[in-house]
């Protein structure tokens, strides 16, 4: 069963320089209990997708078309009050750098209870505290943390507490947006382990967003590669790593160093990602595409086509690779 279906989602930000189309024709599904990865470079629209799902994008951002079907309901046109029901108790999110978003003068436990009071006004403080302690146990925090202030915790502990906060209202889907980016490798490894454990114990669905293709390899069942607001390749993680069909995916894989296996010469991709400010039609990857030739239709937008079971790739590029 699909917990989330995103269909042809478009989102753009209005700026003084013109409209920035941050999310273009993005479609994907997340099954119950599945973990789905979004990978791409900074500015490719990963976080904009996450924000659109919860409709938390900045005020100048607007979903211009498309559907987001969560648990059988299209949530794009919901009112603010209806959205509040979905946020946190349906879909919750661990923001990028969220560990620095704790209020410094309120105890950790009280901040989590505050979110729970919003969604479960009938529960008592003791019930909420009991729930928080259960969650602390899952994410590997000691009970005493509940009465600590944020500055008393290390980065890793704060990030664990953020995960507990995201779990506090029993969501069905968690979006983790670069949850380990500011952390050390050893701490990152522990947090990744906690997230996996949480997912197993609670049977949650997960959308994992990262620029690090190695983390996506370890954390996800299915994945999508984003470039300049579009998904250029989508499919089972194992299949994409074994058999990348898009030249951008290939170059991401070839540019990632590893500590195991033979030491290989890494390949870089020349050029820079394009500006997302609305421009005429056409393939946005063309300037960096190693297969660009006269057969490219400059008018044609990217179109995904199925190349294997559940494996979709930008059609133009797939034919040439």
């Amino acid at each position, binding site marked *: 069963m699909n917990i989330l279906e995103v269909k042809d989602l478009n989102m753009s930000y209005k700026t003084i320089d013109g409209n920035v189309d941050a999310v273009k024709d993005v479609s994907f599904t997340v099954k119950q209990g599945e973990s789905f990865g979004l990978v791409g*470079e*900074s500015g490719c629209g990963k976080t904009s997708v996450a924000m659109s799902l919860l409709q938390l994008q900045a005020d100048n951002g607007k979903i211009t078309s498309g559907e987001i079907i969560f648990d059988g309901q299209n949530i794009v046109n919901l009112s603010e009050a209806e959205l509040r029901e979905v946020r946190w108790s349906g879909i919750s999110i661990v923001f990028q750098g969220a560990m620095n978003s704790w209020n410094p003068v309120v105890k950790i436990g009280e901040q989590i209870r505050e979110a729970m009071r919003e969604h479960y006004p009938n529960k008592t403080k003791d019930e909420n505290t009991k729930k928080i302690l259960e969650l602390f146990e899952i994410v590997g925090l000691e009970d005493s943390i509940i009465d600590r202030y944020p500055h008393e915790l290390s980065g890793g502990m704060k990030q664990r507490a953020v995960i507990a906060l995201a779990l506090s209202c029993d969501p069905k889907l968690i979006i983790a947006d670069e949850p380990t980016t500011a952390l*050390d*490798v*050893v*701490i*990152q*490894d522990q947090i*990744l*382990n906690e997230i996996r454990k949480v997912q197993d114990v609670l049977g949650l669905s997960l959308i994992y967003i990262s*620029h*690090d*293709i*190695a*983390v996506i*390899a*370890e954390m996800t069942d299915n994945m999508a590669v984003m470039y300049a607001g579009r998904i250029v390749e989508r499919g089972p*993680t*194992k299949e994409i*790593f*074994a058999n990348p069909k898009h030249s951008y995916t290939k*170059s*991401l*894989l070839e*540019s*990632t*160093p*590893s*500590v*195991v*296996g033979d*030491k290989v010469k*890494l*390949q*870089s*991709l*020349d050029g*820079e990602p394009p500006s997302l400010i609305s421009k005429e039609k056409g393939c946005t990857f063309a300037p960096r595409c190693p297969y660009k030739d006269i057969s490219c239709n400059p008018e044609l937008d990217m179109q995904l086509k199925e190349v294997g079971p559940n494996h979709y790739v930008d059609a133009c590029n797939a034919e040439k690779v």
Partner: protein
Amino acid sequence: MSKNLLEVKNLEKYFEVSGGLFSRNKSTVKAVDGISFDIPFGSSLGLVGQSGCGKTTTARALSLLDPKTGGNINFYNDETSNMQSIDELEGEELKKFRRNIQMIFQDPYESLNPRWNIKDIILEPLNIHNIGNLKDREEAVYEILKTVGLTPPENYMPRYPHELSGGQRQRVSIARTLIMKPKFVVCDEPTSMLDVSIRISIMDLMLNLAKDLEVSYLYITHDLAVARYMCDRIAVMFNGKIVEIAETEELLSNPIHPYTKRLISSIPIPDPSYKRERYELDFSELDNIIANNSDELPMAEVKSGHFVATHDVKGLL
């Protein structure tokens, strides 16, 4: 065995911290606590470890940005063909030494003066050290921009940092560093702020320059995979001490110290079919292994060139 460019012996950098606003109690933070390593000509050493372990403090002490509080740094003096302690350097000699040691910083967005154009940014070190006349200097800037791949140089010279991307800014940082023709460059996570597809081109540029210009690097990173790509040898740091140092492939395939094992096994592998096994480590136990405080922790050589800090090699093997 090739000649050493740099020898570091028991380098120490302690910071005095006061106990509080009205307290007279002072305590000492041993940010770098007696580390030793050699850097042979044209080779690069990776310094890895978690944040707060003293990597950047080591870098700043080596490039003389902060004075060390103990130990010795010896540098090859090409006039006398001998190793010379930097403590003996004064005046002109010290200035010359500073030319030979340069640093590339982590953040290309904050380490370039936003009000200067690229030409002036790269000219600055030449002006400070008073090298050549104005025409020579401008030619040198032109050449170095070509070397770091910012071509055609005349398009870049009048531009300001905000007009460049992160990768281009880091190329400017590298150009500014290399224009002094240093022998030794300390790189403090120079690619950690860059996107993957750009990161490799900067790393390749640095590797090529090292070969062409015979520069040695001390390459600081928290990412062992990057260190593997860049460095001949790797030193692992923990709590201000080097716990293990070896040739890169030897260290990765045959780690001995528990902390090294934990660090290596924490690194995600870009291959979904690879099953990574995590080495479990109790960090309080680690403190015991490393601490045994007061006395110096000897470095035991377990294989040629592979050293581990321990009192009890057999216990670790």
